[in-house]
C-alpha cells in the first residue's frame, strides 16, 4: 500500500503527545511519531494508538527511530520494523536500520537521516544508490547546495523546514551528572543552556538516550520550499513550541501549500506569531578552515 500519492511536498509534523496529534491531525500529511521505545526525544505517546489514529485520518505515520544504536537496541528495533512495516515509514539515523530493512525487504520504508553526514551531491547520490525511500541532507548547508545536490539525485528528499534544529547529541546524561556533582535537583522542564558570554538560549533535553541541545532560534523555509521546490517531505519540528502556536504554523504551511494564501501572506502571519526565526545556513555557508592547497 502506497501512502504517497501527492506530488507536492508533504507536510510532516513531529508529535510527542496524544493531544498534539489530536489537535494537529487535520493540518499534516505525515506524522513523525516519537515514542519512548525507539525515538531520540519522547514524551508519553502511545504508538499503537497513534498509528491507528493517523491511519483513520489518512495521515502517514512515520515512526522516529532516530538514535545511534547500541548492540542492545538492535533486536528491539528489528521487531518494531517487522511489526509496523506494512503501515508506517521509519525515520532512522543509524546505518544498522538500513541493514535490518534490507533483511526485512523494506528499504522502501526507510527515511534515512544521518543528520550531518550527507552534505554534498556526491554523498547524496551514493547514499541514494542504497535504495531507501527518502534521504535527508545536512541542515548545515545552504539551500542552494540542497537544490544543486537534488539535480543529480532523483529520489525523495526529507528535510526540516521549520522549528528548532538539533545541534548536539551526546550519549552522556550531562544534566544528571551535573546534578550529582553539585548535589542539586534540576527539574527537566523547559530547560535552556546559555553560554556565559552570549545571550542566546539553547533548548536542552535529557532523557535515557543522553543529552540533546538545539539551536537558539527557529528556522522557517516557507519561501524557499515553495519558490524552489525540491523537498518531498517538509518536516516541521514542534519541540519547545506551545501546541497552539505550532498548530498555527502548521496551518499556514498547509494553506500556503494548497495555494489558499500566498507565501508572502503566510510568512507575514508567521512573523506575527512573534517567534525567533533566523536563516541559519540557508544563505550562508559555514567556514571551512581551508588549507593552502
Amino acid at each position: 500500500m502506497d501512502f504517497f500519492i501527492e506530488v507536492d511536498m508533504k507536510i510532516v509534523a513531529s508529535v510527542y503527545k496524544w493531544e498534539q496529534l489530536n489537535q494537529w491531525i487535520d493540518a499534516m500529511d505525515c506524522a513523525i511519531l516519537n515514542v519512548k521505545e525507539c525515538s531520540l526525544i519522547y514524551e508519553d505517546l502511545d504508538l499503537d494508538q497513534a498509528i491507528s489514529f493517523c491511519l483513520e485520518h489518512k495521515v502517514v505515520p512515520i515512526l522516529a527511530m532516530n538514535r545511534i544504536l547500541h548492540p542492545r537496541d538492535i533486536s528491539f528495533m528489528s521487531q518494531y520494523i517487522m511489526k509496523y512495516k506494512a503501515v508506517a515509514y521509519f525515520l532512522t539515523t543509524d546505518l544498522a536500520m538500513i541493514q535490518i530493512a534490507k533483511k526485512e525487504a523494506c528499504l522502501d520504508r526507510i527515511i534515512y537521516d544521518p543528520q550531518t553526514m550527507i552534505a554534498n551531491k556526491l554523498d547524496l547520490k551514493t547514499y541514494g544508490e542504497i535504495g531507501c525511500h527518502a534521504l535527508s541532507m545536512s541542515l548545515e548547508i545552504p539551500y542552494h547546495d540542497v537544490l544543486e545536490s537534488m539535480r543529480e539525485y532523483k529520489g525523495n528528499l526529507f528535510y526540516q523546514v521549520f522549528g528548532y534544529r538539533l545541534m548536539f547529541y551526546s550519549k552522556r546524561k550531562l544534566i544528571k551528572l551535573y546534578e550529582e556533582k553539585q548535589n542539586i535537583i534540576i527539574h527537566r522542564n523547559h530547560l535552556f543552556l546559555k553560554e556565559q558570554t552570549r545571550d542566546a538560549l539553547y533548548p536542552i533535553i535529557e532523557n535515557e538516550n543522553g543529552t540533546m541541545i538545539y539551536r537558539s532560534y527557529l528556522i522557517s523555509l516557507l519561501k524557499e520550499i515553495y519558490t524552489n521546490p525540491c523537498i518531498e517531505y517538509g518536516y516541521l519540528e514542534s519541540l519547545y513550541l506551545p501546541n497552539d502556536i505550532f498548530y498555527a504554523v502548521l496551518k499556514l504551511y498547509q494553506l500556503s501549500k494548497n495555494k489558499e494564501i500566498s507565501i508572502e501572506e503566510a510568512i507575514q502571519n508567521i512573523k506575527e506569531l512573534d517567534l525567533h526565526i533566523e536563516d541559519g545556513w540557508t544563505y550562508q555557508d559555514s567556514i571551512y578552515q581551508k588549507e593552502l592547497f
Partner: protein
Amino acid sequence: MTKFELLAPAGDLEKLKVAILYGADAVFIGGLQFSLRSRASNFTLEDIRKACSFAHQHHAKIHVTCNIIMHNIDTEGILEYLKALEACGVDCIIASSLYILKMVKEHTKMEAHVSTQQSTSNIEAVQFFEDMGIDRVVLARELSLDEIDGIKKSVNTDLEVFIHGGMCVSISGRCMLSNSMTNRDANRGGCAHSCRWAYDILESENQINPKEECFAMSSKDLCAIRAIPKLMEIGINSFKIEGRMKSLHYIATVVHTYRKLIDAVLNQEKIDFDQYEKEIWKAENRLTSTGFLFHEPTIREQLYDINLAVPANDFIGIVRSYDSKTQMAYVEQRNHFLPYTTIEVYSPRGTYFISIQEIYDLDGNSLDAARHPQQMVSFKSEIPLEPYDLLRLN
C-alpha cells in the same frame, strides 16, 4: 593470532618519525585537502611521499585522513587527490564520506577505513560497511568493552578503537555546537571546542546552576591503559591514539608507553598499570578517564574545571646529533634547564639517567642556563645519545 597495530597521530614529518621510532606500527596524518584538524600542521604531497618512504623503511604504514564532511564546494578533485596519495605510497584512507570510501575501493589499491565520524556502534552498522568491501571500521567512542567484544565476535572487518586522547562529548560527527555558535564547522576542520566553554543552565528564565559555578559539558581525555589486555583478548586490530595537534614529547611518551604495554601483554608479563599511567603522566596535560569502556560515564569522567589541566614541562630538549669522537650531544632546547643537572634520557632504546656538566651554545660559549626555546645547545655525555632521544628533567 591477531596482529595488533599501534596507530599514532602526527601533525608533521618530525612527529611522524618520532612516532615510528618510539614504536608505532602505523601513523595517521592529514593532507592539505579533505582533512579535519585544520590547525594541525598538515602534510603536503611531498611530505606525504617522504612520510611513506620513512614509514615503509621501518615497516610501518601511513593512513591519511580524508574525513571532512564535504559541502558541494569541497568535492572537486577528490578522486585525483586519492590517486595522488596512492602514488605517494599511502596505505590507507580514513573517511566518513560514503562517496570517498567508495572511490578508494573502486579506483585505488589503498585500504578504506571508516572514520569514527560515522559513529559506528553496532554489528549491523559494521556489516553495512563490510558489504561495501570496507577494510576497517573505527568504532564509536561511546562503546563499552563488552559491546566491542560482541561486535568483534560477529564481524569479519578489521576493527579499530581509540585508546588515548581527546574525547568529543558529543557523538562524533553529529556535533554542530561550534558551527551554530561561531560559524566554524567542526565537520570541516574548524571546531572551536564550544563544548569546553562555560554555560549557565536555565529553567525558563531562571538560572539553576550556582552563580559562582558554570554548567560544564566537557569530557576528560581517554586513557585506556587498563583496558588494553581486554581489547587484545577481544582481538581488536588497531589501537588508535588521538592527537595530531599534540607535541612531539606527548607523541613519543604515549606511543612508547602503549608499545611497551602491548608487548608486555603479548609476552605474558605481569602488568603494573600504575607504572604505565605514571609514565603517560609525564607528557599528558589534560585529565584522563576510561570514557565508556568500563561503565557509563560518571562525574569522574567529566571535566568540570578546565583549569585542572596540568601543564607538562618536564620535557627539556630533543637530541639532534651526537659526536662520538668529542662525546658532545647537540640538543634543541624545549624547556628551561641548568648545567650540572641529572636528566632522564627517554629513547626508543630505553630510559636512563645522565649527569650533564657545562652547557654551551653553538659558538662554544658556556651558558648559565638553557633558557631559549628551540635554541641549539651542547653538552658532554659519555653515554652515546642518538637523534630523536628526548631529554626530561628527573
